[in-house]
């Protein structure tokens, strides 16, 4: 469509019009998404390609924007809790934690030791679940169909375990201000131990089936190299950052909860490519297992929720930031309170957003198939990006 009067090219939507192709004749503008098998949700990436080489890439966001932050301002503190399970549905408990942590910090609320340990155990189980799903979905992107089904087998066990205490299977709303909503029982502990024992040989099987596979190696080695400078510029966190050899993990750098009492490694990879990120995530699953086993040993008796926990919190005036390490990176909640029962402002810092912002820079000059591989290796959860 060409509007003669205005002399404007009105074809396509806003983004397509503002994504002018280079004057060269042999490039093609390609819309990857919003419905595309490898963008996992409704992410849209506009690509300018020459043959199969990507000249330019630009992600377009907002297709699943749900006004999560605004919702925080119109709901009372406790009513915002279920929203947290929906920001990043794969690591819902980390978001739960970031939010209750922020409110607790604002109110100076003490959390009982047992509750902290329960949080660590459930959050790490959830992290394993998230990484497993990423693993399956990433391989699906790379054209292997079977791993995701194996990953779902394991996920099913974790979901059963978490359902036992939290009542849900995916969008958990389990943590409460000052503790958790339900105490864990012996069967939970037993099942978790069983799962830890079960997952270790499975991880070995995954390594043999996928990690060592030459075809996969060739698809991820030296693909999507991210330099330190780019990472700093865009504020990337999580396995993406650690995959480039930077040892940054909120659990260690700003220890919250009882993580400082637990012994675990922060896996890093020096190769800076998709393989590095892949290996970091696979090792993180092992580290999470280690954390869970230790926490199960150390968990003290006591109440699972603080007796001082308010039913309807009214934190004092002030501003607070609380960050936790999610499966995708640093999850932060910035709360501003004016002393009423409603938050004045809720700001959610989502790691996927920062990680995706790097994509145009990394994707430049790669093949289309590699772009899919890179996009997958960033481990994006689209609802979290748009919030």
């Amino acid at each position, binding site marked *: 469509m060409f509007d003669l009067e205005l002399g404007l090219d009105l074809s396509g939507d806003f983004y397509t019009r503002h994504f002018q192709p280079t004057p060269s004749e042999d490039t093609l503008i390609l819309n990857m998404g919003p419905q595309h098998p490898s963008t996992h949700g409704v992410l849209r990436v506009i690509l300018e390609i020459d043959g199969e080489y990507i000249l330019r890439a630009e992600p377009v966001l907002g297709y699943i924007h749900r006004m999560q932050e605004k919702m925080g301002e119109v*709901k009372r503190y*406790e*009513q*915002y*809790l*279920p*929203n947290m*399970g*929906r920001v990043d549905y794969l690591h819902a408990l980390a978001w739960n934690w970031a939010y209750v942590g922020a409110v607790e910090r604002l109110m100076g609320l003490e959390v009982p030791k047992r509750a902290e340990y329960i949080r660590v155990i459930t959050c790490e189980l959830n992290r394993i679940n998230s990484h497993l799903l990423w693993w399956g979905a990433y391989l699906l992107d790379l054209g292997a169909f*079977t791993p995701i089904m*194996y990953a779902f*087998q394991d996920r099913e066990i974790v979901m*059963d375990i978490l*359902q*036992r*205490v*939290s*009542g*849900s299977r995916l*969008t958990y*709303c389990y943590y*409460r201000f000052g503790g958790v*909503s*339900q105490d864990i029982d012996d*069967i939970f502990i037993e099942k978790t131990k069983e799962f830890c024992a079960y997952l270790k040989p499975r991880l070995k*099987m995954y390594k*043999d*089936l*996928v990690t*060592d*596979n*030459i*075809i996969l*190696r060739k698809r991820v080695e030296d693909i999507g190299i991210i330099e330190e400078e780019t990472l700093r510029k865009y504020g990337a966190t999580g396995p993406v950052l650690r995959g480039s050899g930077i040892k940054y993990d909120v659990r260690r750098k700003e220890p919250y909860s009882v993580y400082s009492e637990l012994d675990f490694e922060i896996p890093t990879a020096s190769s800076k490519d998709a393989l590095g990120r892949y290996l970091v995530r696979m090792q993180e699953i092992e580290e999470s297992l280690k954390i869970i086993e230790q926490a199960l040993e150390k968990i003290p008796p006591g109440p699972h*929720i603080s*007796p*001082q*926990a*308010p*039913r*309807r*919190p*009214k934190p004092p005036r002030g501003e607070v930031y609380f960050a936790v390490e999610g499966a995708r990176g640093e999850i932060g909640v910035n709360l501003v309170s004016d002393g009423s029962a409603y938050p004045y402002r809720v700001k959610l810092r989502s790691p996927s957003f920062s990680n995706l912002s790097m994509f145009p820079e990394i994707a430049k000059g790669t093949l289309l198939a590699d772009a899919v591989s890179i996009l997958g290796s960033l481990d994006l959860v689209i609802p979290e990006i748009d919030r």
Partner: protein
Amino acid sequence: MIGSKLKETFDGVVSLLIGLKITFKNFLKPNLTVHYPRKTVKPEELTGYRGHIELVPKPENPFVPRCIGCGLCRDICPSGCIEVRSKRIAEEKEIHTPHFGLQDTPLDLTRKVAPPQKTKIEIVSFELNYNYCSLCGLCVQNCPAGSLRFSKDIYLASFSSRDFEFDLLKRLEKQAQARLKEEEEWTK
């Protein structure tokens, strides 16, 4: 140079064969699928599962809920999907429960009994719009009378959203009748 290249190729081929071996082993293993609806999940695996909420009856009368009509659940529900109407028997006047001014009372989960009432309160209707429920559990946790719990209905499905607007009082009645029947049969 050529040696390492050949070794790499050899390792690659071996890795491919290992992959085939693993999938073949899995091929021979039994299925894990639960064939719904011929098979369903075992009830003990549903411990802790949050279905939609339902009313808990009074121990002495299974037809009457423990609810005291305080309206707290309606007030706290983030999705606004609970509607409670109650009336005081003494005054015979229907009242729409006022929004309960929640104080910063400490949360005591062990206390699950209704505070003493001067006038008797009858619950006129208790409706749940399950379409909007986010299953957060805030209502169950905060009910002062311990009158709410999660049901275990996991196989809920329908073509119409109207089917998920539940009248919980009716549900309670049905459950009570079923229980009575069961008891009758048992005594027989």
